[in-house]
């Protein structure tokens, strides 16, 4: 379950940034997680409960923004919707699709005191 190490990274980055900004508590954290990324948001939330304990983010709410999958189909020459990683173009059915959105794994911002 790599969500545990990813969540540890999130908490480490958040706590470092909070300290650099002189904050005493993190109130909320927002993540961008694309639907085509290799993380499961439910697992992230589960790991978050364990990882945040004893840190200044202990009581922070975690908000996960899901970003829809999008790709550039070389055959159709246009942007198409992608529901699955390395999936086929929904229009032509071929696999010449380069993912352009939906694989984000980003800590966007946080609210601190």
């Amino acid at each position: 379950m790599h969500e545990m190490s990813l969540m540890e990274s999130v908490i480490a980055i958040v706590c470092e940034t909070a300290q650099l900004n002189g904050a005493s508590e993190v109130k909320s954290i927002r993540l961008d997680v694309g639907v085509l990324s290799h993380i499961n948001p439910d697992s992230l939330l589960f790991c978050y409960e364990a990882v945040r304990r004893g840190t200044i983010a202990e009581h922070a709410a975690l908000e996960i923004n899901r970003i829809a999958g999008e790709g550039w189909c070389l055959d159709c020459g246009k942007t198409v919707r992608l529901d699955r990683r390395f999936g086929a173009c929904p229009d032509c059915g071929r696999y010449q699709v380069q993912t352009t959105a939906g694989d984000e794994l980003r800590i966007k911002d946080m609210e601190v005191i």
Partner: protein
Amino acid sequence: MCTVCGCEMATLEDGKSKTGAHGGEHDHHRGHQHDYGHHHDRHSAEHGALQHHQRIAGVHVPGMNPERIVQIEKDILSKNNAYAAENRARFGRDRIFALNFVSSPGSGKTSFLVRAIRDLKDRMSISVIEGDQQTSNDAARIRKTGVPAIQINTGKGCHLDAHTVGHAVDDLAPEPGSVLFIENVGNLVCPSAFDLGEAHKVVVLSVTEGEDKPLKYPDMFAAADLMILNKSDLLPHLDFDVGRCIANALRVNPHLRTLTVSACSGEGMEAFYFWLEAETARIAKASQ
């Protein structure tokens, strides 16, 4: 509230909210760009957070909400990737050719490495980092071949990360110009996300698994540069379509190179050795 840094300075002057207006009263935004997420870190380091931002914990300004938004905009994997970049720089400096072997458990990674090391150890200097949740069985198997090996036990972790690998490299101290094999934890999911600083990920798949594994676990086959289809000596006893398996892998990653081998009989291993020597030479030439 300013959506860039979360400050609410605008309410100070006349009591009216000027949310979102970056006007003249908002002068702490002058002279620097809110262009990327490291901005606040940089400012805090340069000026001290307490001077720069008036609204932080412990500094009470009447009429101001002490909460604020801090932009981060950092990749969740950025910590791991920074360690991976350090490892990669070190490998480049010392001309160490590092390969990260990934697979499901039981594909025959360790047997493959043992065979390759026995065949190659007189031709090149090799050392090995072994990753497993528990036991040092695999490192012991490697050491029997006479090359140095170090075991990383990840405990409950399901993959190696760049930080632990960096420490293992410190302890192992591979010779300049050598080959470093990193055998990751047997798991076709998590190790795909973690760059260790290696030159290539090599995914080992065995013919006793399904031809559709590349479609079931696409991230790993997309992250790899070479696929080794192992246990080819068992093909006569199995209903496994090599062509279909390779086609599935290429659908996920058109740039993937594939080799069919048997670490048991030795069939096809020479092709891997050729690839290894060619890649080592290419990297050595590139670093000159």
